[in-house]
């Protein structure tokens, strides 16, 4: 909605208010010689009427007038919203009452000149104040334009946001349906291939080999679809809950019990704090990082995985520790095969793997999912490693999450 434009560029019209006609005349002449447009009023009341009707950039006001004196007029003028920004120069034969000088009217435009006045001085002041008024008006105009532009932009953003939300919801829907419908025939391929193998090919090694490839490929595809589904489905509206991170890690330890035993792995977990997290998602983060640590362990050396945390001052991987800082930095270190840090930008990208599937199984989604979740938690994720020397993954998370208010459409 456009604001009413009473901030139009004013004509530089000056109003002279004095009850003595000779004063009006001399002032008017002086100003007109200097190419100012002028108007006159012989009393406070007349002045007020004219002010309501016209736009002036400056008012020169005689203080001593019968009826309303200059001060009263000034008070009234600054009371009208139309004229509150108009500068006023008082003309006084006597010493100006300090009140009016120190009071500070809204526009800051108040000055005085004593009679008999110095024409050059008066002109200087007139020039200054008309310029001041012009600038103030321009400023107000710019402000109105900006406010209008901001409102337009906000409206555009709201609409875009709504469109994105809809599109996102649709995409998630497609991803879910597609994966669901894709998994079913895949399951049949696996199941019936296995049946063929068991029932008819037990004693035919050539055929067995080919069938094994069919079965393992379909298994791989099933995992891929599953992982993709989880990645795309990462819920945007899940709530942050104050959670004891030690409990999450314990849960994951239990889930990975079998694998930990098989590899003879040792897990050392230092005390972790409570933090605002989405429990299911943060559990997934620990699960992925821990199962990676187990998977990429060195052949002859039992995996040792250490998890510890410290409070830090800033949301940065290298932030200084601070015992009551608002963030927590969590380290997950393993003694596995490590990786070359030149691949750092790749490992968190979806489907980018550093090994072939023959060396290590996996779909290349695990770390991408971790990154997505950490981003969702407004955190930072990093890693350090060297080939043959293990890896350390670092997460920095805020302890408290402030829910972002949704951009809602205004009513009406």
């Amino acid at each position, binding site marked *: 909605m456009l604001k009413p434009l009473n901030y139009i560029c004013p004509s530089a019209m000056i109003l002279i208010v004095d009850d003595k006609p000779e004063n009006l005349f001399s002032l008017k002449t002086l100003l007109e010689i200097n190419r100012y447009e002028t108007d006159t009023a012989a009393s406070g009341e007349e002045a007020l009427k004219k002010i309501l009707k016209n736009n002036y950039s400056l008012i020169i006001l005689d203080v001593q007038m019968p009826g309303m004196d200059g001060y009263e007029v000034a008070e009234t003028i600054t009371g009208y919203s139309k004229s509150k920004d108009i500068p006023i120069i008082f003309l006084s034969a006597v010493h100006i009452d300090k009140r009016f000088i120190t009071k500070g009217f809204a526009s800051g435009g108040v000055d005085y000149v004593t009679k008999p006045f110095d024409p050059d001085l008066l002109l200087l002041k007139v020039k200054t104040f008309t310029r001041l008024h012009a600038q103030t008006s321009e400023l107000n105009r710019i402000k109105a334009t900006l406010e209008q532009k901001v409102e337009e932009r906000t409206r555009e953003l709201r609409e875009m946001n709504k469109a994105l939300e809809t599109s996102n919801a649709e995409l998630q829907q497609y991803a879910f349906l597609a994966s669901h419908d894709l998994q079913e025939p895949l399951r049949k391929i696996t199941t019936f291939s296995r049946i063929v193998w*068991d029932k008819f090919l037990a004693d035919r090694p050539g055929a067995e080999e080919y069938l094994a490839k069919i079965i393992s490929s379909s298994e791989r595809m099933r995992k891929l679809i599953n992982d993709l589904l989880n990645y795309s489905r990462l819920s945007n509206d899940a709530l942050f809950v104050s959670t004891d991170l030690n409990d999450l890690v314990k849960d994951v330890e239990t889930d990975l019990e079998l694998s930990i035993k098989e590899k003879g792995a040792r897990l050392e977990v230092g005390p972790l704090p409570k933090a605002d997290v989405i429990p299911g998602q943060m559990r997934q983060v620990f699960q992925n990082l821990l199962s990676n640590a187990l998977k990429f362990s060195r052949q002859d050396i039992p995996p040792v995985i250490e998890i510890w945390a410290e409070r830090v001052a800033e949301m940065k991987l290298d932030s200084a520790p601070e015992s009551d800082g608002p963030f927590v930095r969590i380290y997950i270190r393993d003694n596995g095969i490590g990786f070359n840090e030149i691949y750092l930008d790749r490992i968190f990208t979806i489907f980018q793997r550093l090994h072939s599937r023959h060396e290590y199984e996996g779909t290349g989604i695990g770390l991408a999912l971790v990154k997505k979740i950490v981003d969702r938690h407004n955190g930072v994720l990093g890693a350090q490693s060297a080939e043959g020397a293990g890896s350390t993954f670092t997460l920095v998370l805020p302890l408290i999450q402030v829910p972002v208010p949704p951009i809602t459409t205004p009513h009406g």
Partner: protein
Amino acid sequence: MAKQFSFLLVDDDPDDTFLFGEVLRDVASSVVLSTAANGHEALEQLRASNPLPDLIFLDLNMPRMGGVECLSTLKSNAELSRIPVIIYTTSSQSKDIEETIQKGAVCFITKPSNIKELSEILTTIVQSLPTNLEPAIQTLSKKGTHFIIC
């Protein structure tokens, strides 16, 4: 004469139904298997059945009436609610597990993709009838190689 047991399998997937029948026949040829393609058909069949089956295997994603709705209806009927229901589905979603167990299913089995596992499951179940179903289900849930939650 040993009692002849009967199972009802409610599943819209013809391949799964076929396989289930095959494996069941191998494991226990005396068990009679009837099938329905969705919840609605199952309820119709049950209403006309005499005697009622000893066990119902119930899929979740089916047209017309899915497993959850069918389960609710079964459990709200005095007679039908006495039949133990085992969920037999492709899903492994914990929300499905929670919902169906809470609605009265005794067990949740994610369809295994190999015949051997299905065979083991059905063997265990058949051998436990008529009165030892609960402990048999406990045994199954400890196997842990695929999702069997009870």
